């Protein structure tokens, strides 16, 4: 049977996290009442002119550099002309042939192997408005709050070979954008949007097959689902010797299927030409270098450092570097304790469980890294047991108090005084003759019961190792 190879390229739109829109002073705010963040410029009022928000340019350059692109010293804006009510000027200000950045790449790890995915270009443009169907009958409602929100479009090379690779690419891309504080990349709010091009070709064939474009995939999981579905659809057609039609498909979330949209778009001629209202952009080397200096350590480097410097397993490093905030938290904790793996365990265990259960952002966690490090230090010194430490952490997360304060207040210091423990042990032996006899008769489990009694007596504060040693010595006589 014919073997096929899948070829996927992604076009990702990322909203830049600026305070104001790209060409006017209107605020950027998700979920504001419709048409409240608008002005003559973004409404396309006759005579109004765009003025570039420099912050958007800075973020676009930073993004291009973080994606290993070459930043063009000369670039410009162009008009993309089309009629639709989401575009009040009837053109979108975008970049056609001189994008901010080009020739970049992202590295992903596929089944333990590193793979480089090429980035064709990163360009800056303005967002369009939002159309919704009117609940009051046969009409569309237009919300122009979104018009003019700065976007970058990131176009990948057709280097992705599976739907899973596509998802991994998106996850890495999102991480990089978040690390660099370029965008929040919330797909559910539309601050990251993804369209995919997919085609199949026979293995060994060089030229690309006919592609389709998939739109409306609103989560990473749905990107993978949509691509997997489309891959199978195309494969079935090719096996039946049917021709793939170049068209735009819409992902249908409920059924998981891709459905052909009206393919009138193919006839679109956007009549791009240089935007005469905006001067060309000339960037000095220094300006770009300043942007490069704004880029923090990126997730891939950080993962590697966590493995090499802290000796973490790769899995831990991957989990802890998903967001910059989490990685910073780990760094802040691990650098203050003897055993970084214990920091990883506490963060990936109790701390993330708390974050998840309460729907928090890392920034909202009341226990700061140095406080967590102090708790771990107390455990390492044997002042409290791990078991008690779990409760102490819970209390810390709720109250924000330091570990030492809680231990003090609740008298939780571990009892490690041998004399004191021996005294308690003798008392327990005296009142539990049956268990002692059972142990002597060979029932080893009986020791557990005695130790349990002892922990109960000390409200868990007894040093468990010492208790075991002392009890065993006493009843073995």
């Amino acid at each position: 049977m014919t073997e096929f190879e899948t070829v996927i390229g992604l076009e990702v739109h990322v909203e830049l996290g600026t305070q104001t829109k790209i060409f006017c002073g209107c605020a950027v705010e998700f979920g504001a009442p419709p048409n409240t963040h608008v002005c003559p410029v973004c409404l396309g009022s006759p005579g109004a002119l765009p003025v570039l928000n420099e912050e958007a340019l800075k973020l676009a350059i930073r993004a291009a550099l973080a994606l290993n692109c070459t930043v063009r010293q000369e670039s410009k804006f162009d008009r993309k002309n089309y009629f639709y009510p989401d575009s009040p000027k009837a053109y979108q200000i975008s970049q056609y042939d001189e994008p901010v950045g080009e020739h970049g790449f992202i590295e992903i790890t596929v089944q333990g192997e590193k793979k480089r995915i090429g980035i064709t270009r990163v360009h800056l443009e303005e967002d369009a408005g939002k159309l919704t169907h009117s609940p009051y009958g046969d009409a569309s409602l237009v919300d122009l709050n979104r018009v003019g929100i700065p976007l970058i479009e990131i176009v990948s090379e057709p280097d992705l070979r599976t739907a899973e690779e596509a998802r991994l690419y998106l996850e890495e891309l999102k991480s990089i954008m978040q690390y660099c504080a370029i965008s929040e990349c919330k797909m559910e709010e539309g601050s990251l949007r993804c369209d995919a091009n997919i085609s199949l070709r026979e293995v060994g064939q060089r030229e690309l097959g006919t592609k389709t474009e998939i739109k409306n995939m609103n989560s990473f999981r749905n990107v993978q689902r949509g691509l997997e579905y489309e891959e199978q659809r195309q494969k079935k057609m090719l096996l039946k010797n049917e021709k793939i039609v170049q068209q735009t498909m819409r992902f249908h979330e409920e059924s998981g299927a891709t459905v052909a949209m009206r393919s009138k778009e193919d006839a679109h001629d956007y009549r791009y030409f240089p935007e005469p209202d905006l001067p060309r952009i000339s960037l000095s080397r220094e300006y770009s270098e300043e942007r490069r200096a704004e880029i923090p350590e990126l997730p891939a480097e950080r993962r590697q450092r966590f493995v090499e410097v802290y000796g973490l397993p790769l899995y831990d490093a991957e989990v802890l570097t998903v967001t910059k905030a989490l990685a910073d938290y780990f760094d802040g904790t691990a650098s203050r304790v003897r055993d970084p793996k214990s920091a990883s365990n506490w963060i990936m265990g109790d701390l993330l469980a708390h974050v998840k259960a309460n729907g928090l952002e890392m920034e909202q966690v009341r226990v700061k890294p140095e406080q967590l490090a102090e708790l771990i230090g107390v455990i390492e010194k044997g002042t409290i047991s791990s078991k008690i430490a779990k409760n102490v952490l819970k209390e810390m997360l709720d109250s924000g108090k330091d570990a030492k304060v809680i231990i003090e207040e609740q008298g939780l210091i571990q009892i490690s005084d041998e004399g004191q423990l021996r005294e308690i042990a003798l008392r327990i032996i005296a009142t539990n003759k049956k268990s002692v006899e059972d142990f002597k008769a060979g029932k080893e489990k009986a020791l557990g019961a005695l130790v349990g009694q002892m922990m109960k007596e000390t409200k868990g504060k007894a040093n468990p190792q010492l208790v075991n040693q002392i009890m065993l010595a006493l009843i073995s006589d």
Partner: protein
Amino acid sequence: MDFYSGLRKLHQGLISREMTPADLVNFSLEQIKAVDMQVQAFVTVTEEQARVKAEQVRENGAEGILAGIPFALKDNMCTQGVETTCASRSLQGYKPPYSATVVERLERDHGILIGKLNMDEFAMGSSTENSSLCKTHNPWDFERVPGGSSGGPAAAVAAGMVPYALGSDTGGSIRQPAAFCGVVGLKPTYGLVSRYGLVAFASSLDQIGPITNSVEDAAIVLQSIAGPDRRDSTSVQRDVPNYIEGLTGDICGLKIGVAMEYFSPSIDQKVRAAVDSAILQLERLGAEMIKVSLPHTSYALSAYYLLAPAEASSNLARYDGVRYGYRAQDAENLLDMYRQTRSEGFGAEVKRRILIGTYALSSGYYDAYYKRAQQVRTLIAKDFDEAFAKVDVLLSPTTPTTAFRFGEKTEDPLMMYMNDICTIPVNLAGLPAISVPCGLADGLPVGLQLIGRMFDETTLLRTAHAYEQAAGFAPMRPALGVHA
């Protein structure tokens, strides 16, 4: 009282309390009532607003040179709350939510807006016959056009209804009507005056400028409206010199270039004679005439009629009936609404240029048309650079003929386009230029065009002023339609 004697005189009258701003507003309104029935320059008169403003200016005791003096605007400059139509059906009833920067600046200087003036629809035309609102008549001969596209402003100033007006110039739209109506029209360097609030025709060519009775008045108005504006990214960050101080009357030793390409045989012989005598006049003032060549001039018209329509096709795409302006009724669906709205909202010339521009930008044609035209534009700018290495100012007729009759050129768009042959290259190069009256030909005004170096309005105005003072034509008062 009259408005011909200049802004300085009106200002002195106000300062000496011989008259009040209200007197000037009254006089302007009276003139409008008296002659605008025939001239039809105004499309909106802001009478009530102007009277209120006149009171305010008097109370404030503002003393700037434009304070308390009425003015009018071509109807493509946005005025908050005052209808701004571009003489197009597509913008009928449209009241902008904001005022253009030039309007803000004139109001900052306590000027008083008296009304809005007729024009060719969206500034596309050379006779103001493309207005969907009314037919503006040349005050020198009511059978003739006032020129265009700023026909309203030129006619209003020539007929003495306002002391000055603002026009816009994309390919000659200030200078050509100024020449036809016997007034002064200045197109500043591209980027000197903010375009914010000027309804765009061709963004890379459009420039606002004054239409006045004298060169000094042009300098005074330019002083108020020029200078950087953070709302227009194409406005240039540089200090504005004192233009009025630059009017020394001394042009001794100035080198003036005469480009032979601008004196083609198609130029009317009487126009040519008037320009020739202006050359003699300038020589008498001590200027040196030098022959120069601008070899790519013959390509300017073709390049312009690709670039300007290309930009216009995009700039005018927003008039779709969705948010403001005219919307066709009874459309079946969205596409139908767009089609009907635009078919009914735009006039023939606007549609012609949208079609040309759309074609020039279409994939497969872009390189042959738009891109080639841009290359020509670069060559034309280079021609001027080379000429200005040798001379300080260039000289030509403003137009090949004097004002023509209504309907004379409407049948043949190309004939109409030829009218701008001397003015268009200037816009392509972004240079400043002025038209000053240089006499009459068969009783109709002739305009002399002077072209300056980039941002050298000072030398340009000084030259025009020296000529004007020596020639003694300005101000020219038309007999209001009674043409011998």
